[in-house]
């Protein structure tokens, strides 16, 4: 939202702050200003000038004009191409050395042998309107004087988000009220209520849905002349980024920019019948809007209609069929109030955001409709001389009961604010913002809320705390540590566990990455996941973010491909949530996982065991169990990680098809399942008092035997005396046959109460050998 400093000065007489200071005060007390820019600063140098003579120049459409540009610039010769340049015309003269709109720099130049000592300018060239058909046509000023009604201005841009809760600040008067309160100046209300005519209305209004339209007011005018607005009005709208259109439309926009009340003017002769109907649209009702578009409506949209059909989409945009045209002589001027949520839904559904809908969706003040009409009457009389009111005020209003006053306990106020504040100061602040203050009990105020703050903004005492806090300035509140009982906070063990996993992974050489929760259908397909297994985003911006990941793998895979361009070998990991959809509207299951990866250019086998070591660091004593490979896994290098009897994840090499150059091994652990198991229970076992005995055993087996299986058989056969079975190494080659290998284990035996005899050790050894042989293994002597 843009605010003109000149306009604010008109509404707050005596305001003499610089635009910069004003901007800073508004930021600190009211709403965030994004910046302040001068508007048309070149107007300082532009003056009115009278064309004394205008002669055609041979071979071109240009004219050689001699102008009287007043005492400062004197008589100048200029070359002008405007069709309306003629002797006697009073227009705008730009002296050389001045830069005007769109960065156009004016210099003395020789055109076709004539020195042009400046330029005559159009409204568009000066940034005052959009008219570039000819140079400006002025009247009522002397040559040499500034352009009438167009002083240099400054425009403050306020962040719309910080005005969401302030319907009143969508017009200059609301901001002026703030400025007056901040500076302790008086606010000059531009509205003259006495201009509202009494008597029987010339038009009727029939509101069929008061929920959606609490009030509809209108006036009917006749003897209207439609034409361009005076320059000052065009310039003011242009400064705020509003497009000047015609005197009638411009007045409605001017009043909106001043009072925050959007208005609409209908050509009364293009309406059928003389009743305005406010109703929900029919299903499929077609509506041709002013912007040239056509919309298909539904009963969730509210329309303004005549006997024949919709003539405006309520609170959003007018209709093409009843718009003001040059020939318009009678108008119906609408000033209504609409329910904000419905306006917002309509405007969102039709993707049609207008200056009107933006204001109505903030909950405008129904009291304001008639005030806006009064202001428009005054302005119409200026811009369309001879205009007459036809009949009295049209007004239908289902008035809501006024909101009850708010009780404000001054002690409570001080406790919340965190500083003392005098009763009189509180009263002064509230009254400067037009609140009505009474004190029915000592130290307790009853505060009446002005209508323009009561629609949505202010209803509880906390809202008043804000009014007072911002006006006294929050920088007057000292920071103070609270005095409160010491309480030990709840400890988030699971989060601490995740941090410890991260530390462990980093210590093992893995660097942490963070990937998106989104994947594309293409990424999913690469791993054999179907889109339907995923929770789907309804409104993605790009195809990269259509699905929510149910595995960290697609992201990790992308990391591997990306980084392989720069590194021959690397390790990385991510801790993130897998998202698994559930039935219906339930929240999905979010399962935190660790996925670690090692990329190498070798054959990849070492990497798998490095990952197994990481798993063992996290899960002491875990096992890797062979398991059937999934489609994206290396068919002969895949398994599960099991710990304490539970399968907790997978260890595999990525299918080489998925890795362009080199190999990638992956460890995937379900951290929620691991955390649920709790810390590993530890129990102390007394140290052995008697020495242990050990012997090595080389087992001859097939080439694809599992080391852990033989180890387990040895342990089982060794019985109660077995202290430890340790795999040492394997051997392939002579004298073993080609399809055999030997695996050597060290067996440690011991007893708690005596030193083992060689007989005892021998017996165990024989038992082990017998068991292995029975299972088809050989023993290498």
């Amino acid at each position, binding site marked *: 939202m843009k605010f003109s400093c000149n306009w604010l000065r008109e509404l707050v007489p005596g305001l003499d702050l610089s635009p910069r200071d004003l901007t800073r005060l508004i930021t*600190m007390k009211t709403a965030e200003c994004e910046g302040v820019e001068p508007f048309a600063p070149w107007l300082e140098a532009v003056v009115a000038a009278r064309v004394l003579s205008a002669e055609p120049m041979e071979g071109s459409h240009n004219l050689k004009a001699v102008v009287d540009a007043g005492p400062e610039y004197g008589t100048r010769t200029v070359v002008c191409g405007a069709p309306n340049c003629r002797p006697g015309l009073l227009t705008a003269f730009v002296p050389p050395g001045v830069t005007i709109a769109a960065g156009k720099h004016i210099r003395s130049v020789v055109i076709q042998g004539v020195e042009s000592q400046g330029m005559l300018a159009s409204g568009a060239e000066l940034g005052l309107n959009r008219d570039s058909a000819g140079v400006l046509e002025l009247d009522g000023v002397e040559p040499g004087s500034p352009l009438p009604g167009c002083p240099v201005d400054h425009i403050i841009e306020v962040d719309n988000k910080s005005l969401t809760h302030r319907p009143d600040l969508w017009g200059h008067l609301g901001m002026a009220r703030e400025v007056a309160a901040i500076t302790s100046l008086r606010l000059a209300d531009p509205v003259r209520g006495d201009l509202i005519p009494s008597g029987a209305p010339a038009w009727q209004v029939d509101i069929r849905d008061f929920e959606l339209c609490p009030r509809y007011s209108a006036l009917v005018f006749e003897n209207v002349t439609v034409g361009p607005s005076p320059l000052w009005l065009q310039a003011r709208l242009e400064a705020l980024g509003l497009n000047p259109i015609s005197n009638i439309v411009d007045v409605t926009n001017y009043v909106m920019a001043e009072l925050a009340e959007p208005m609409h003017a209908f050509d009364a002769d293009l309406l059928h019948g003389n009743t305005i109907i406010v109703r929900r649209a029919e299903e499929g009702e077609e509506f041709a809007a002013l912007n040239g578009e056509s919309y298909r409506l539904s009963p969730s949209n509210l329309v303004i209609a005549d006997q024949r059909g919709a003539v405006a989409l309520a609170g959003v945009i007018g209709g093409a069929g009843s718009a003001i045209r040059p020939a318009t002589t009678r108008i119906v001027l609408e000033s209504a109030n609409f329910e904000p949520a419905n306006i917002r839904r309509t405007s969102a559904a039709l993707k049609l955001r207008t200056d009107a809908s933006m204001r109505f969706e903030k909950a405008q003040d129904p009291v304001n409709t008639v005030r806006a009409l009064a202001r428009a009457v005054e302005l119409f009389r200026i811009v369309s001389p001879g205009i007459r009111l036809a009949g009295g005020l049209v007004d239908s209003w289902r008035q809501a009961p006024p909101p009850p006053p708010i009780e404000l306990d001054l002690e409570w106020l001080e406790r919340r604010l*965190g500083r003392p504040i005098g009763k009189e100061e509180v009263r002064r602040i509230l009254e400067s913002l037009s609140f009505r203050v009474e004190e029915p009990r000592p130290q307790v105020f009853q505060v009446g809320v002005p209508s323009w703050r009561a629609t949505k903004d202010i209803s*509880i005492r906390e809202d008043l705390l804000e009014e007072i806090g911002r006006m006294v300035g929050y920088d007057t509140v000292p920071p103070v540590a609270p005095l409160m009982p010491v309480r030990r906070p709840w400890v988030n063990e699971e989060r601490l566990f995740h941090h410890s996993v991260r530390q462990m992974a980093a210590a093992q*050489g893995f660097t942490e990455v963070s*990937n998106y929760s989104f994947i594309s259908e293409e990424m999913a397909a690469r791993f054999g996941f179907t889109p339907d297994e995923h929770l789907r985003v309804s409104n993605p911006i790009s195809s990269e973010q259509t699905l*929510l990941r149910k595995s960290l793998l697609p992201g990790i895979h*992308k*990391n591997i491909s990306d980084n392989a361009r720069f590194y021959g070998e*690397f390790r990385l990991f991510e801790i993130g949530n897998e998202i698994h959809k559930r039935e*219906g509207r339930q929240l999905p299951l979010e399962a935190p996982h660790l996925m670690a990866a090692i990329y190498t250019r070798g054959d990849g086998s070492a990497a798998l065991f490095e990952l197994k070591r990481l798993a063992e660091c996290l899960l002491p004593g875990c096992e890797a169990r062979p398991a059937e490979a999934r489609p994206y896994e290396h068919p002969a290098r895949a398994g599960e990680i099991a710990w304490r009897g539970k399968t907790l994840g997978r260890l595999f090499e990525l299918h080489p098809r998925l890795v362009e150059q080199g190999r990638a091994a992956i460890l995937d652990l379900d951290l929620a399942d691991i955390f649920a198991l709790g810390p590993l229970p530890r129990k102390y076992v007394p140290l052995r008092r008697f020495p242990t005995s050990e012997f090595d055993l080389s087992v001859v087996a097939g080439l694809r035997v599992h080391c852990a299986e033989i180890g387990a058989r040895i342990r089982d056969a060794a019985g109660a005396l077995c202290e430890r079975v340790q795999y040492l190494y394997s051997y392939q080659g002579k004298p073993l046959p080609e399809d055999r290998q030997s695996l050597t284990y060290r067996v440690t035996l011991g007893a708690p109460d005596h030193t083992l005899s060689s007989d005892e050790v021998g017996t165990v050894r024989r038992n082990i050998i017998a068991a292995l042989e029975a299972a088809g293994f050989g023993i290498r002597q």
Partner: protein
Amino acid sequence: MLDSTLSDIEARALSAIEAASDAAALERARVEFLGRKGALAQIGKDLGKLSPEERARAGKLLNSVKQLLEERFDKKQTWFEEQALRARLDAEWLDITLPAPGVRPGALHPLTQIQKELEDLFTSLGFAVVDGPEVETEWHNFDALNIPPAHPARDAQDTFWLENGCLLRTHTSPVQVRAMERFGAPLRIIAPGRVFRNEEVDASHEHTFYQLEGMMIDRDVSIGHMLYFMKTLLEAIFRREVTVRLRPGFFPFVEPGFELDIQCLLCGGSGCPVCKQSGWVELLPCGLVHPNVLRAGGIDPREWNGFAFGLGLTRLVMMRYAIDDIRLLQSGDLRFLEQF
């Protein structure tokens, strides 16, 4: 006669010790003079032929020579041993500038590091660290936070909606409500985590970023209390005194609501591109918790009140390390991540 023989032996032995160039030569000399069949042993045998008086005197003399020579031999031998050890150890010279074998330690993501740092800070101030789901219900993300359907404040948060009617949380604020539901009052929590906005990505905009929500609920919590925690937080983050200003800001879940700005740390407030020439950087939206939010969380606003704040962790990381492209944080690019 004996005297001169002994002094001759002594002189010869000393020069042999002197001349011995290695341990073996020294040992040979020891055998020659001090061995069982050595020169001194020979003289010892001859002592028996002397008169008792002579024997006692000569014996004494012999012993003193023997003692001297033993001392000299030992000393030289020790010297040889030390020499040998020194030579052996010298041969074991290592180039300690060689790189250590095995893998380099990995790095933790800068967002992890800053989260942990702030978790530790707030834990020390008596706050619990809580988590909430990344996929949220519309009620927790909006309605419970005093943002009903069709509220214009929903504009400020472009939302990813999901096919099942849920959404990706647009802020960490729904954790306020979840924490109130779970723990009740009094309450002190922070909730760091990942949030999502449906935006086009460029160097300064991301659809995925991190926030840290904070909330304290107790009796008679004031704006001054909130300011105290905010200043403590900022000084811990920036490890120096920071100048802050508090100005009105609109967030439906707080009343009053504030924007807390810090004086630009780069230019010190005189204006620079980072602070867009304003001298201030917007960092910490905060406010007193709206009574409707307390009610939504099952807490009686007549008895309890509190403050809440939201800190942009992604923004903070970018400020701390002067990172100029937000996309790097989610890129998985090790050239970037290994720097932390």
